[in-house]
């Protein structure tokens, strides 16, 4: 093929073409494009509520990770003579009935709660996205079979499912990850499948098929990146949902076991003595609620940023 640069002045919409050979194009001469991700990020940055939520959430995460090392108490060290004391200069959040420092327990509880939230979400994301994309792309009988399996799992009552797991395998945190992950990926798979089915009819997917790309390549390079917008939003909203589930399980005594603490465990302990030692409930509950608020606002902000058409204003 010859160099057609002289014919490039076909139309006024075509930019002028530099007259040199291909190998001479240096990186710095290339006009850097702005990806849809970059555009979304710049929109998100303009959303004050979302940015504030992101900052507060990150602060809570950092405090939970680093905090326990900075507080001069051990979360499991009991001081039975001290007992429950109100917040003071020595114990900012007070102490619980066994004389343990509540600040360090709340921060460590946050570690576990956040870890459960993030790990279970990542697991549900990985399974749900691959599963949903495959079902949606393959269609037909493969899709029908795969989605009936999802329906089947959906139909299992979650609490009974978890209680059965606990009875069968004993209580452990890892089992809780499995239980929560097994439930949360279902909605993810459905959302991704719906997105992929919509995309599949678009011409760029037909073009990818025409180019002879493999199914794997089409799913991974052409379909999944295009459903990632809604997936990120759902993932952001799944984290608080999972944390709530963990709190619910721990509250029932099925989740994290004392002396380990999670926000759910702490709230459970707090509500037992709510009338006498209210700080035992107030501090963990406040931090937990704040985290949930932040993640929900962030999810809303991400949705508006990633899909500007759906934004209200």
């Amino acid at each position: 093929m010859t160099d057609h640069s002289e014919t490039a002045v076909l139309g006024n919409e075509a930019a002028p073409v530099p007259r040199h050979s291909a190998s001479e194009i240096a990186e710095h001469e290339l006009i850097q494009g702005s990806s849809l991700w970059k555009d979304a990020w710049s929109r998100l940055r303009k959303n004050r509520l979302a940015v504030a939520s992101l900052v507060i959430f990150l602060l809570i995460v950092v405090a939970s990770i680093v905090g326990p090392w900075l507080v001069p108490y051990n979360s499991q060290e009991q001081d039975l003579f001290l007992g429950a004391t109100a917040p003071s200069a020595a114990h900012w959040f007070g102490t619980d009935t066994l004389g343990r420092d509540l600040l360090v327990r709340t921060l460590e509880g946050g570690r576990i709660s956040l870890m459960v939230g993030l790990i279970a979400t990542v697991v549900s994301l990985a399974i749900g996205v691959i599963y949903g994309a495959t079902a949606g792309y393959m269609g037909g009988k493969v899709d029908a079979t795969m989605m009936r399996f999802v329906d089947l799992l959906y139909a299992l009552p979650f609490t009974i499912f978890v209680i059965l797991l606990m009875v069968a395998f004993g209580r452990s945190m890892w089992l809780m990850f499995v239980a929560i992950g097994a439930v949360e990926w279902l909605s993810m798979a459905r959302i991704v499948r719906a997105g992929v089915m919509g995309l599949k009819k678009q011409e760029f997917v037909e073009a990818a098929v025409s180019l002879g790309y493999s199914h794997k390549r089409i799913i991974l390079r052409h379909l999944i990146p295009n459903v990632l917008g809604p997936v990120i939003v759902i993932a952001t909203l799944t984290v608080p949902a999972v944390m709530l589930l963990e709190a619910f399980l721990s509250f029932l005594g099925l989740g994290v076991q004392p002396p380990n603490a999670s926000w759910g465990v702490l709230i459970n302990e707090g509500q037992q003595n709510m009338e006498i030692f209210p700080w035992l409930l107030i501090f963990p509950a406040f931090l937990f609620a704040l985290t949930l608020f932040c993640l929900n606002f962030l999810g809303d902000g991400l949705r508006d940023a990633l899909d500007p058409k759906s934004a209200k204003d």
Partner: protein
Amino acid sequence: MSEHHEPGVRIDPREDFLVLDDVHTYFDLGTTLFTRESKGVVKAVDGVTLTVKAGEILGLVGESGCGKSTLSRTIMQLIRPTSGRIFLEGKELSALSDKDIRHERINFQMIFQDPYASLNPRMTVLDTLAEAIRTRHPTAKGNALRGRVAELLRTVGMNPAQMKRYPHEFSGGQRQRVAIARALATEPKLIIADEPVSALDVSIQSQILNLLKRLTREMGLTMIFISHDLSVVRYIADRIAVMYLGRILELGEASQIVDHPLHIYTRALMSAIPQPDPIVERTRHRIVLQGDPPSPLNPPEGCNFWPRSPVEHDERMKHEEPVLTEIEPGHYAANCPFCLQEA
């Protein structure tokens, strides 16, 4: 007027570049949930026999819903034909397995109608083109690959410095140029352009048409150019096929179709094109068809054009299946006696 000619289109699957041999593409709508009655079969492509010569541009015209997009996707093997055979350079595409067809696909590429939907919005032009180039040159990488992308962009009249941009940063015309570059990236022999200009501004249309015409000539490509607009097709095509309700009604050299169309349907289409000269325009005699094209779900029997025919006809038209017949050298028309009579 057709008695002296052998009905049917002559095909030679070994010699001709692209051959469609009695291709049917039906869509079964399935059965109803409880009564198990058939919901019917859409006969989108209903017996198309056609050859395309190497190096030519074949224009395929028809109203929306006539099956031209389905036919293009059938040739592309995006939809497998219900029956009939398709040969490209003697190789029967319609007989290849899904796995084998993947490796053949680099030889025939498609340009789509909507440049806003035909490019992956998450990939830069560089990524899109590089990925397509690697289907032909799997080991290409680095500067050589980028150089080839730059060359392709220049070929379609774009500035290679824009290769790191995303589709949403371009106009419709520029995107269509990228889509053309992507089709060229695999170094195909056949390109099917499905309404490549109908989504573009009129001012951009002629640029893209000229580009396609020039590329076909310079690169020795063969093209099937699909459009609902006969005035666009007659500008670009060497030969023209007129499609109606899943069948070809007329086929011939562009000049034959434009200057003396035989079938009443083609004549009606031709008469609908406005003339630039106001004096000619005033005397333009329009052949007005009745109603809309019937549903391909229950296409009419016989000459499927009878429900809309503006000429007088009797029951024979509803029962006798016309066959595409060579009326004059290279000029074929469905041999329905009513449709072929002079107005």
